[in-house]
């Protein structure tokens, strides 16, 4: 109790609260602007934190992190351009809703779902950090492999129209992720003697190109059709289309209640990240929904599932960071840096030696989550107004920001060109009916699956037993198999019915 009071006193200084709000606003804005992303914002804010007291600095970083993770969904809903990779799952149904004039409803639901996920995640972090971290340590290479395979299967199977196209898109992402230096043996792979390719294809280039630039190209086609409206989006004037009713909230609650623990679990395991959480939750929600046919056409459940899981990662990802000193993703790696600069060494001793700091940090997480709700709600009308900018100004600006963002993140003209290449690829995929999201998932999970497979085989001396003798990996692999069989059986039945 004493510790909590001391923590409360530390955190409730005006400077800290201000920095949280600044962080949140910066995060939401940067997350929402296509081309700029959260890791970039956190990295660039890092030098600022050097000059601040540790708690103030970390308050700001957490604000940026939480705000940015949510902010990506704003542009995903309004423009079909996910500002963050995780928001790609939100874009599927969120943008479909927006096209029906229900942007307000989608945006509000995304705020509710994000804040809900965050809150639960914060609480898990506060209550059960030690227990959860022990669970996370059980994840060795075989478990990562099984989990990667499981996620790939779920996400592959839900990719909407055309299983074949989903698999192709996923495999393409996997293949593209393997360009560069082979992480196991260190040799160059598929670089075709182009020097810059030895650095691999950058994830940021794929995100910006395949989602934002491809959408900009789809939009430019409209110039060829006379009579197209100048506005990007029509917003319905009816109140019911801009609010989430109680009945609707109750209807999506199960999806949120599934998505949140999923997000919490995935955040607690280092190396997975929020996009996998969002897509897994989206896939599960579709599989378990009473109205799966609405997914992709503006399902509220889809938005709630993706957003709750996506933001539920933000609290639990601090579990491995604080208890083990292990950063789970780029953002927590930067936070680790910010902490160590101030002499705060996360790990087993942190809770004993710096108890005050830890409890202050926990309170900070909760305050940021509450502030997040208000800042986002206040900002909402402004975001909707941003879509009133005519297409002929908005998309040129989007393109400029994408190019600038890619250039700043990679500081390389070559990688910026690669980003444009992904844009053209994404456009062609849309035109030929291939979903882009599985490519993203393949690109993220590919390296994880490959690395863990090869690590496992080295550990086991090339024996496959290692995947089946360990309980976690055996369970995950069995689940994967069950899912493949049931879905295969369903498809088979559908085909038979079609023939009759």
């Amino acid at each position: 109790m004493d510790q909590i009071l001391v923590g409360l006193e530390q955190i409730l200084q005006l400077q800290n609260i201000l920095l949280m709000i600044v962080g949140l606003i910066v995060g939401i804005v940067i997350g929402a602007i296509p081309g700029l992303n959260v890791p970039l914002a956190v990295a660039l804010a890092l030098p600022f934190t050097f000059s601040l007291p540790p708690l103030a600095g970390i308050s700001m970083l957490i604000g940026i992190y939480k705000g940015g993770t949510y902010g990506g969904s704003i542009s995903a809903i309004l423009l079909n351009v996910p500002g963050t990779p995780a928001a790609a799952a939100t874009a599927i149904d969120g943008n479909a809703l927006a096209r029906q004039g229900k942007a307000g409803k989608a945006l509000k639901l995304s705020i509710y779902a994000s804040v809900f996920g965050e809150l639960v995640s914060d609480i898990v972090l506060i209550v059960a950090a030690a227990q959860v971290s022990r669970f996370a340590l059980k994840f060795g290479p075989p478990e990562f492999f099984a989990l990667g395979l499981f996620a790939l299967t779920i996400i592959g199977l839900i990719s909407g129209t055309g299983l074949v196209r989903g698999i192709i898109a996923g495999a393409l992402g996997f293949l593209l992720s393997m360009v560069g230096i082979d992480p196991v043996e260190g040799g160059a792979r598929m670089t075709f003697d182009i020097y810059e390719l030895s650095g691999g294809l950058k994830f940021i280039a794929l995100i910006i190109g395949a989602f934002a630039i491809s959408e900009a190209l789809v939009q430019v086609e409209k110039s060829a059709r006379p009579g197209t409206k100048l506005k990007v989006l029509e917003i319905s004037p009816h109140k019911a289309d801009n609010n989430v009713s109680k009945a609707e909230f109750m209807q999506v609650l199960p999806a949120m209640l599934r998505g949140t623990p999923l997000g919490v679990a995935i955040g607690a395991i280092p190396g997975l990240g929020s996009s996998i959480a969002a897509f897994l939750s989206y896939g599960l929600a579709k599989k378990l929904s009473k109205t799966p046919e609405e997914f992709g056409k503006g399902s509220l459940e889809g938005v709630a599932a993706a957003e709750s899981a996506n933001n539920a990662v933000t609290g639990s990802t601090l579990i491995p960071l604080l208890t083990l000193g292990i950063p789970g993703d780029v953002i927590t790696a930067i936070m680790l840096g910010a902490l160590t600069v101030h002499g705060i060494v996360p790990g087993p001793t942190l809770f004993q030696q710096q108890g005050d700091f830890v409890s202050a940090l926990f309170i900070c997480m909760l305050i940021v989550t509450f502030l997040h709700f208000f800042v986002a709600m206040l900002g909402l009308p402004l975001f909707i107004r941003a879509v009133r900018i005519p297409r002929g100004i908005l998309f040129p600006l989007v393109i400029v920001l994408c190019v600038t963002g890619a250039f700043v993140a990679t500081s390389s003209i070559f990688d910026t060109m690669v980003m444009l290449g992904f844009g053209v690829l994404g456009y062609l995929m849309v035109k030929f009916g291939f979903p882009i999201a599985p490519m993203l998932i393949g690109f993220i999970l590919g390296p994880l699956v490959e690395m863990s497979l090869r690590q496992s085989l080295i550990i086991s001396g090339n024996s496959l037993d290692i995947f089946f003798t360990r309980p976690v990996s055996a369970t995950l692999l069995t689940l994967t198999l069950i899912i493949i069989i049931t879905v295969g059986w369903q498809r088979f039945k559908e085909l038979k019915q079609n023939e009759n």
Partner: protein
Amino acid sequence: MFNLRKSKLVVAAMLGIATLASPEPVVAQSFPDKPITFVVPWGAGGRTDIVGRMVSNVMGSILEQPIAVVNRTGGRGAVGTKSVLDGEADGYTVLVTTPGNQILAPLFNDVGFVPSDFRGIGRVASGSVIFASNMDQPFTDGASLIEYARANPGAVTYSAVKNNLPWLAAESLAEKAGIKFRHVPAGGDSEAVPMALGGHVNLVASSSYNAIASQIEGGEMRALIVFANERMEALPDTPTAIELGYAVTASPWTGIAVSKGVPEDRIEILRNALAEAMETKSILNFANSSGTTLSYLDGPGFEAQWDAEFTDFQSVVKK
């Protein structure tokens, strides 16, 4: 458009709070008269990045020019390293360098540069590779580890990044001791350490004490061998490899370098600025709180170290 205006407001607020605005100098000096860029070939938040950002902060105020830090990652640091050579050799592009990207990368891949393509501004920090394991291993210290590995050939697995200093240290030790370790590649210390902590491999070859400090102090891991000339202050009971009878040292350093085409007077200005920076309170404080071992070495000494290590490593890798 709107968002942009909004962010400018934020900017103003941030500047107000952090008071980090850097005024433009009124008089144009000879060098530097515009902002300098530090290229960090590794990811943001990592050891190299943090050291680079701290040094850039202090050097920036000494040189009265802001220093921008960019992370140009990929190809085990080789891409960012090469990019410094590709730009104009005017001294405005500076490399934050480590053995992995500058000395080792050219040994394994066709990267288009050798260490001597650079000029040393100075070494900032250095550490030591450390072997560490969790508490449930069949060995409890360096000597028993080697004994165990000898009795059970190929049974001991270790996690480390491939083709970097910790890996090199482990392989050299194995060769000198006539034993065999199985290397399990990892993406970085942040992946290698949990593998050992969770017992998925027998031990980790860590590139710094920082990465395992909290686990060791918390009694979750034990340090087995330090690859340095002398024992570490923080680990007084952990023997060096030399004490165990195998002359292997591996010291991951961080330093500052520029392309060799940069004019001599500009190199001098940068060297003096770094030397001055290393004496400042902010660097000393930073080292203290972040657990970084400062070990300043001037430019010529730094260059000599590259040459020696390049030759050394070459002979190890060739084998």
